[in-house]
């Protein structure tokens, strides 16, 4: 994946570039807003990671300009401002996701990988299939190897989100944001308990587990 990182903190940028490289992504770096904007509009990237406060040009204005030009490259906004209204302004400016500093790299990586997928057409798919497990978004039916599985509405939405991002790590915060639509940190293991219930419904009694726990990061569904 080709990523453009616009971040003025050299140390943070160096760490991110190295970590993204280890995760198999090519990362270009711009240290100020103007350069970042020039690079973003001049080259084709899969994901842009944009810091909100930048020298020479504000991160949000870069995103706004790109969107105004019809550039739909997914954007992850990084910011030290984490209040509800800050997030709202960030997303309103055209950002696709918003991550508050300080963050765990696993969280950033998971979000970047899920974002990149958005540009692919599977977004509009009406059904998903992973290793014999199928989910129909219209009839709201879930089956594994032809056997129907009964899920609670919330469990259905959890599975739907996981399957939409099959093969990618989704973090607990991402689940809380996308399934419950809340943006705070789940303090205890609330999400884990929901996941273990879901797992018992879709994996119990089958030889190959589909729902995997990724240590220190989150969950992933894959065959």
């Amino acid at each position, binding site marked *: 994946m080709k990523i453009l990182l616009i971040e003025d903190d050299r140390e943070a940028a160096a760490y991110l570039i190295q970590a993204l490289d280890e995760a198999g992504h090519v990362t270009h770096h711009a240290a100020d807003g103007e350069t970042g904007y020039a690079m973003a509009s001049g080259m084709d990237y899969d994901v842009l990671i944009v810091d909100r406060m930048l020298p020479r040009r504000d991160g949000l204005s870069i995103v706004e300009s790109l969107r105004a030009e019809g550039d739909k490259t997914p954007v992850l906004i990084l910011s030290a401002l*984490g*209040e*509800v*209204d800050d997030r709202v302004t960030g997303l309103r400016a055209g950002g696709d996701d918003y991550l508050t500093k*300080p963050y*765990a790299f696993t969280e950033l990586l998971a979000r970047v990988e899920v974002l990149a997928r958005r540009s692919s057409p599977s977004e509009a798919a009406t059904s998903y299939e992973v290793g014999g497990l199928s989910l129909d978004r219209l009839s709201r039916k879930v089956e594994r190897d032809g056997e129907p599985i009964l899920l609670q509405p*919330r469990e259905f939405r959890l599975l739907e989100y996981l399957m939409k991002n099959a093969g990618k790590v989704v973090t607990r915060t991402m689940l809380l944001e996308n399934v*419950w639509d*809340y*943006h*705070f*940190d*789940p*303090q*205890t*293991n*609330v999400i884990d*308990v*929901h996941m273990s*219930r879901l797992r018992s419904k879709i994996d119990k009694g089958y030889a190959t587990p589909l729902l995997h726990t990724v240590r220190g990061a989150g969950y992933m569904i894959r065959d």
Partner: protein
Amino acid sequence: MSRFAQLWRTSTVRLTATFILIFSLFAILLLAFITWQSSVQIQQQQAKDIDREIAALQRLDATGGIRALAFALERISRAPGPGVYYLGDMTGQYLLGNVTDIPANVILEPGIYAFDYERANPLTDPPPSAGADKTGFAVVRSVVLNNGMRLVVGRDVVERRGFSAIIVQSFLLGVIGIILFSLIAGGITARRVLKRIDTIRDTSTKIMSGNLSERVPVTRRNDEFDGLATNLNAMLDRIEQLLQGLKQVTDNVAHDLKTPLTRLRNQAEAALRHGADDETRQQALETTIRESDRLIQTFNALLMIARAEAGAPSGTLTDIDVSAVVADVAELYGPVAEDEGILIQTSITEGVHLRANRELIGQAMVNLLENAVKYAKPQGDGEGRVTVGLRRHADRVLIEVADNGPGIPEEDRKRVLERFVRLEKSRSEPGSGLGLSLVDAVTRLMGGQFRIEDNAPGVRAVIDLPAL
């Protein structure tokens, strides 16, 4: 800067001067009006008297003839007073009366005149001498009688002038008196008003110099100044309370953040220690990350509380379905509670809307449920139970989270809302001591009240919000 200019700057002097100016202007106008009115009155009265006298003399002339008229005129001419009388023949030649030197045109042409004259009273006045200063000034009316004789009747107005002089004199006296009076009254009023302002200024000076416990004295008069003083005092109370809160928070932050920071540092040192194997290092680093995450959480909670306490930025409070939020969070915690052997029961009135911030209400509910699930652990052989309720009561919306745990002693119920306050019993439990502070701040942000009540046994936390 001259001393006068300095003096003029003080409100006392300016206020007094304004008072005097207004008072005096008003008094002068009033007195002038009275003076003018009374002179007009006197003039009218005199004119009427003259008319009446002429009418009486004419009647006398008609009934009693010239003899009766002459006799009467002779008599009233001699009487002392301001009366002016003149009777002339058909050509105007003096016949009798107490004035002799009346201008010819006055005698010959009927009408009203005013002129200087010399009084000729055979009994009291010396005979007129030509060229002498004329001492009288008369207003007269001249008529022609039926038989062609000329009659002039009038009043000496020198006396009236004397009267005017008296009026002017008393007028001046009055003005001086009024100026003096308004000087005193204005001075007293201004000083009384300004003294109270000075009191407020003195108090604020003391406060500025660091004594925040000073208060503006409030009198029993209950006037505007007392209203102002009461408001100022309320403001000072609030500021003092905020400052105390700030101080307490600073102390607590210092204490409560130093502890995890120390642990963090210890872990990092452990990882660097000579002879540490890979596993120890791995563990130390993982602990380090966990500790820093907790620190970040604490910071976030502190910031959220600070933001909520600073008031809502416009646009963050919107019309939300609070029933849905409460139900969401109850559902989110259902499985966790169940794993702990606790049953969450809900009784939520559906479709209740509020002007609130969804995220903040959600976070508050999470904090309350975290606590409830943490403390509702079965005691002895009892069963842990948590109830989540939302109902409308008159114009309030009550959100309740209750457990049947050990509860909070009455004397601690206010204290646990303060930042970083953790009761002895809960010290062993994980937590930052910020959960309830956040709930309290969020509730107040939305114009409500947060209370902790006795659930007998256990805690009932009530978020009491104004309905939409």
